[in-house]
């Protein structure tokens, strides 16, 4: 039978459900996020849209910056490492961050492998574009999955695509015969007992959030309605014209996604959302990193 090794880590992910995790680049932004109702913050040097615009190699943030943000807030603090960068993960564990995001938003550091996450007490969240990818990350020890979406675009289409693909592939497992399930597990390079667990439960064995391109309260409500258990917002808050209000509004829409009157009220007069990008014309597709 499949079991999550870091049960305490997956418990923390459960406590984040129904909430919004916000990217912040300074202690001041972290305080704004906490006051607006973020359930956690992601501490980083540049939000994805700036990483996209400026190019170059994107790495783990300066530990001094992360420490300042940890000092400023009382909610969980997450931070990102490059895919496969075990040494960056060790630094974050020493810093006592609450969650590590092994993220495609940063430049990939290992062309072969992701971090072997089971050796860490700090829980990891990883991105996925489909079920196979999600299951590979979970079998490596991820305690939480998020869609990759297409970060820094303000365009929600890829997050919707990934969430629907994962859900659709989970539903399709139901109709597979034992031999087909074995083939699926082998082709996706994941343990069969994990596949069987998901087939029976009809969900991933870890909390599943959405990320990548969420820019408005309506975007958050759309994804919650599609079955997301919570929302990451990267550039969408501090690249909007009124970050405080946008942050509060996305928090409200995530909780009250089933109440269109509430979502309408918080969407009124919000000012400009972040400028968006068309995904088909992008030079860099971050979602293709680390499959």
């Amino acid at each position, binding site marked *: 039978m499949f079991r999550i090794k870091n049960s*305490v880590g997956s*418990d*923390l992910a459960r*406590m*984040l459900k*129904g909430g919004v995790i916000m990217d912040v680049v300074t202690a001041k932004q972290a305080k704004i996020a*906490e006051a607006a109702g973020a359930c956690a913050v992601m501490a980083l040097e540049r939000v994805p849209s700036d990483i996209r615009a400026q190019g170059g190699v994107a790495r783990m943030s300066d530990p001094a910056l992360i420490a300042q943000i940890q000092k400023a807030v009382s909610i*969980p603090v997450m931070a990102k490492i490059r895919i496969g960068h075990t040494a960056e993960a060790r630094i974050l564990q020493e810093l006592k961050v609450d969650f590590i995001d092994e993220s495609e938003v940063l430049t990939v550091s290992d062309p072969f492998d992701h971090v072997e996450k089971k050796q860490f007490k700090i829980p990891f969240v990883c991105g996925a574009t489909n079920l196979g990818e999600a299951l590979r990350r979970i079998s490596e020890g991820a305690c939480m999955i998020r869609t990759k979406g297409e970060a820094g675009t303000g365009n929600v289409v890829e997050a919707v695509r990934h969430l629907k693909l994962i859900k659709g592939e989970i539903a399709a497992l139901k109709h597979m015969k034992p031999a087909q399930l074995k083939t699926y597990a082998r082709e996706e390079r994941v343990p069969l007992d994990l596949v069987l667990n998901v087939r029976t439960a009809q969900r991933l064995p870890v909390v599943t959030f959405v990320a990548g391109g969420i820019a408005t309260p309506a975007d958050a409500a759309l994804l919650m309605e599609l079955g997301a258990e919570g929302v990451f917002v990267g550039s969408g808050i501090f690249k909007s014209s009124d970050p405080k209000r946008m942050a509060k509004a996305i928090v409200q829409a995530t*909780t009250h996604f089933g109440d269109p009157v509430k979502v309408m009220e918080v969407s009124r007069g919000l000012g400009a959302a972040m400028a968006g990008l068309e995904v088909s014309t992008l030079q860099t597709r971050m979602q293709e990193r680390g499959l």
Partner: protein
Amino acid sequence: MSVVGVLAFQGDFSEHIAVLHSMHVPAVEVRSLSDLSKVGALIIPGGESTVIARFLDETRVGKEIVRRVLATPTRTLPPLFVYGTCAGAILLAKKVTGKNAPRSLKLIDLTIDRNAYGTQLDSFETNIRVKGIREKIPVSFIRAPKITRVGKGVEILAEHQGVPVLVRQGKVLVGTFHSEVRDDARIHQLFLKIIKAS
């Protein structure tokens, strides 16, 4: 049996609902005053207390919880029993200490220190012995708060390393741990027993 509501602004409310369903207890999510008016008992789940506190305030659900717990029950105003876990414990305590402490409902005479155990590195799981329950219960403490003072009239139902972790005063039951994430129904049964006995 009256319906049990689970406060569903943020946190692990679906785990509590799953436990109640496993006991065949009717359970509903509570996000508004109108939802609250339909329940005779309420669970405040784990989650981020700062987030849940904001929603309690904005929706006025917090004020109504206080009113119904403190009021003398009448035919039109049934009594309200509350069980708070972790963030829920913080939100029910009389006094909350620690960084950026949220405003609480002050329904149980406790002082509680938020995130007293530390960061996620200090989160842990263990088995605890609860008064009146034979076998130990598997629980997890996730960035948990610590009860640092217990007022007169507050009954201690469980301790971990000499610190109270499950306490009760009147209609309010408070635990700093999570049993719902281990699919264990015994604390929920205890809560329902308290309701029945009153």
